[in-house]
């Protein structure tokens, strides 16, 4: 498709369960970012991929969070043993390499941990 695609758009899960969030970036975009938006907060950086490698994982809030990217394309963000404070909108964005290229966000996955 033409934009960044995220699935599912909405996920409700029980506390303690694992969840996987998927991001399909724009074709050809080598950089991929995961962010989290909690209610009333600004955007929180989680992790950045350049190709398949993640040079910056500094934003992952705990070791329950992990992400991978395969084939320089699709990325999966996994949250293990979910907690209620994990409830948020998880945003993925992609961009072409270089400072003059735009930064396209997906519409996000709304995660609710009950």
């Amino acid at each position, binding site marked *: 498709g033409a934009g960044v695609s995220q699935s599912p758009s909405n996920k409700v899960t029980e506390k303690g369960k694992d969840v996987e969030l998927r991001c399909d970036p724009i074709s050809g975009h080598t950089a991929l970012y995961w962010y989290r938006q909690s209610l009333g907060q600004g*955007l929180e950086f989680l992790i950045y991929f350049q190709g398949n490698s993640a040079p910056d994982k500094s934003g992952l809030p705990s070791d329950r969070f992990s992400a991978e990217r395969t084939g320089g394309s699709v990325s999966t963000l996994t949250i293990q043993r979910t907690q209620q404070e994990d409830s948020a909108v998880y945003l993925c964005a992609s961009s072409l390499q270089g400072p003059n290229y735009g930064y396209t966000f997906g*519409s996000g996955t709304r995660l609710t941990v009950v």
Partner: protein
Amino acid sequence: DQQVKQNSPSLSVQEGRISILNCDYTNSMFDYFLWYKKYPAEGPTFLISISSIKDKNEDGRFTVFLNKSAKHLSLHIVPSQPGDSAVYFCAVYSNYQLIWGAGTKLIIKP
């Protein structure tokens, strides 16, 4: 159809003057609005927000105005500084979803 529109792709302002960035939205039920700033090759950073119960929110040099009847919000930067040169995104937070504008590139001229 775009629900959040930033109709100016770019804006050039003299250093020291006021920068005004505009954003329009289509859904009158939207109730929380945010502005983000993004430098090249970096992720966006949160600037300022406003909820629909207010019409103005101020934080230092940044002020956001909300006109609910016109479904319009604006970001004012006074005085503009060279470090303000960046892309500014307007976003609407509704029902736990973020809806983004396309961004306006602000260039501050010395």
